[in-house]
C-alpha cells in the first residue's frame, strides 16, 4: 500500500516531506552524485549572504556525544555568485529549492529578498534569524520576537506573494512560542525549527576551546528532544501555521516523531554528513512507518500526538467503524 506523501508549505505543494536542512547540502551538486535531488521534497541552500563570506577560522567542527558542534560562520559565495552559478544549476534540474538567507540588519535581509524576488527556481525563502544583529550589539534576531518580526515583515513586504516566507527559529530564546507568534503575525507563511542551539566543547589536551570560534551550534540526535519539544509547543499554540521540523533526524522513525509533534515537513541535516544518501532512506522508512500505522495519507498523521489521551486517531481505516 503506497502512502500519499504530499505535503504543503503554505500553498506550495511538495512531493514529499523530506527536505535538506540549511547549510547541510552544500550547493546541491555535491549531494547530486549520491542521489537524485528531484526525489526529495526540496533542497534548502546554505544561508545566502549579500557579500561573499570566508567564514570562521578552523577548527570549525568537533564531535560530541551523538552530536556535532560547528562554528562555520556562514561561509558562502554571496548572493551574486549564488544567482549566477548555484541557483541556475538547481533550477535547470527542476530541483525544488528553499533559499535560506542571512543578514546583519533588517535592510540586508530585505535587500536579499529583493535580489531573489525575480530569480527563477525559488520555491520558498527561509529566513535564518540566528544571525547577529549589527544594530543591536550583535544579539541574534531569533532571541527576540520583535526583532524577528521586523525582519519577517520586511522580507514578506518585498518578496513576491507566491513564494512562501519561512521563519527559522532558534531554541536559544526565553519563549519560542512568542517568537513564533510574532513571526506568524508579521507575515511568515511557515516556521522552521530548530536552528542549532549554542554549545561549547573544550579540548582537555590543549586545554583550549575545541572550536576556533569558542562556541558553536550543536546538531545531531543530541538535540532531537529539544526539537520535538519546540515543534510540539509551537504547533499547540499555532495549529494553522505549517512547521518545518528539524533536529537530529537520522531515520524515518525520527522524522515521524517530528511529524507527530506537528511538523508537516522534516529537514535532514547532520545525517547527510554521515550518510550522504540518507534523505531517500529516511523517506522510505517514513513511508513504511506511516503505512504500518494504517494511514494512507501523510496529512492524516501530522500533529497526531496532540490528540487527547485515549482518543482514537481518526482516519485509521483498520479500526474505523462503518457509518452504516
Amino acid at each position, binding site marked *: 500500500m503506497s502512502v500519499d506523501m504530499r505535503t504543503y508549505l503554505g500553498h506550495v505543494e511538495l512531493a514529499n516531506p523530506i527536505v535538506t536542512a540549511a*547549510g*547541510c*547540502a*552544500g550547493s546541491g551538486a*555535491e*549531494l547530486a552524485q*549520491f542521489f537524485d535531488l528531484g526525489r526529495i521534497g526540496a533542497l534548502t541552500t546554505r544561508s545566502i549572504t*549579500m*557579500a*561573499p*563570506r*570566508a*567564514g*570562521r*577560522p*578552523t*577548527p*570549525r*567542527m568537533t*564531535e560530541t*556525544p*551523538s*552530536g*556535532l558542534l*560547528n562554528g*562555520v560562520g556562514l*561561509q*558562502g559565495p*554571496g548572493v551574486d555568485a549564488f544567482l549566477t552559478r548555484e541557483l541556475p544549476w538547481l533550477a535547470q534540474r527542476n530541483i525544488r529549492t528553499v533559499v535560506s538567507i542571512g543578514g*546583519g540588519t533588517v*535592510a*540586508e535581509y530585505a*535587500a536579499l529578498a529583493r535580489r531573489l524576488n525575480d530569480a527563477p527556481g525559488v520555491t520558498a525563502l527561509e529566513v535564518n534569524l540566528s544571525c547577529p544583529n549589527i544594530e543591536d550589539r550583535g544579539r541574534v534576531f531569533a532571541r527576540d520576537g520583535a526583532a524577528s518580526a521586523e525582519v519577517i515583515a520586511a522580507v514578506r513586504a518585498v518578496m513576491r506573494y507566491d513564494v512562501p516566507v519561512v521563519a527559522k527559529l532558534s531554541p536559544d530564546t526565553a519563549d519560542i512560542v512568542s517568537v513564533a507568534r510574532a513571526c506568524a503575525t508579521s507575515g511568515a507563511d511557515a516556521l522552521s525549527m530548530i536552528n542549532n542551539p549554542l554549545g561549547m566543547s573544550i579540548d582537555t589536551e590543549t586545554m583550549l576551546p575545541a572550536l*576556533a570560534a569558542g562556541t558553536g551550534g550543536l546538531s*545531531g*540526535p543530541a538535540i532531537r528532544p529539544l526539537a520535538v519539544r519546540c515543534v510540539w509547543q509551537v504547533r499547540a499554540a499555532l495549529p494553522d501555521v505549517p512547521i518545518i521540523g528539524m533536529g537530529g533526524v537520522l531515520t524515518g522513525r525520527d522524522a515521524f516523531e517530528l511529524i507527530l509533534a506537528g511538523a508537516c515537513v522534516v529537514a535532514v541535516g*547532520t545525517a*547527510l*554528513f*554521515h*550518510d*550522504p544518501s540518507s534523505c531517500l532512506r529516511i523517506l522510505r522508512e517514513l513511508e513504511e512507518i506511516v503505512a504500518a500505522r494504517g494511514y494512507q495519507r501523510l496529512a492524516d498523521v501530522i500533529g497526531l500526538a496532540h490528540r487527547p489521551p485515549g482518543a482514537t486517531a481518526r482516519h485509521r481505516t483498520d479500526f474505523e467503524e462503518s457509518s452504516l
Partner: protein
Amino acid sequence: MLTTRQVDAYHALTVVAPRIAEGFRPGHFLGVAVGGPHTSMLTRRAFFIHDVKPDYGGTVEFVFAVDGPGTAWLAGRRARDTLDLVGPLGRPFPLPRDPVTCVMVGDEYGSAMLFTVADALQRRGCRVDFVLGGASADRVFGAMRARRMAETTTLTTEDGSLGMRGRVTDVLPGVIADVRADVVYASGPMETLRRATAVAVEFDIPIQVAVEERMACGIGVCMTCVLPVIGDDGVTRMVRACVEGPVFRGERVRFDDVGTIPFDALGAPGGGSRNVS
C-alpha cells in the same frame, strides 16, 4: 572487510570494495563510518587509500593511527566485519606527461598514499626517489616497499632510531640536488608540507601536496576542512580540502595562514567587499 594488520605503530585495513577500487586514482581518499549502526560518532573518518588490488573484484587498503575512540573502534575490527565506506573521494594527483624525476616525501603514515602515486609515475617512465620519516623507527611507514621500488630511499627519524636524525625536510634539499628532481610529491602533517613547499620553492620546482585537514563529511557539504589557497586569479579563497583538494600545488597553499582567515581572503571579515549591497 578482508584483513587487518598492524604495521609498527599503525593499523592497515583491507576492505573488499569493488566500486571504490574501480574509480580509484592516486591521491583519492575514503570516508569511513565508525562505531557501528547505532553509533554516537556522527562524522566519518577520512583516510587516504594506500593500495588497491584487483582480488575479490577489487580491494582497497588504508592506513591509520589510533588517536581517539573512532580509530580505536576501527582498529578493533576483524576479518568479515562490514564497514560503511564512501569513496573514492577528493581530487587525485595530476601526473606529469613526460618522464621526469620525482621525489616522494612522506612523513608518518602520510607515506601510505604515496606508493600508488609512485607506481603510476613509474608506469609513465618517471624516476622515483623516496624520502620517508617519522618521530621514531616504528612510525616510518613503508620503508621496505620504498626501497624495493625507488632509485634511492632516504629515511629520517627525529630520535635517530632509523636513518638520519631529523625531519624529512632536513634531508630533502640534498636529495633534490643529488637526483636533480623535477617535481616533489608530499604527504604528511601540515607542518611537514609547509617545510617541503619552502624547499621546493627554493629549488624552483613544482610540488604537489596532499593535505591532512580535519574533515567531517568528506564530500564537500559541511565546510569543516577549509584552508586558505590562492586561486588561478591570484585571489585567496577558503577552499575545502575534501573536494577542491586534498591535493594542491604546494606554493598555492598559504601554510602560514592555515587555521586563520587571512585578511585578504575572499569574504574575510572586515574585507573591502563586506556588506556592500
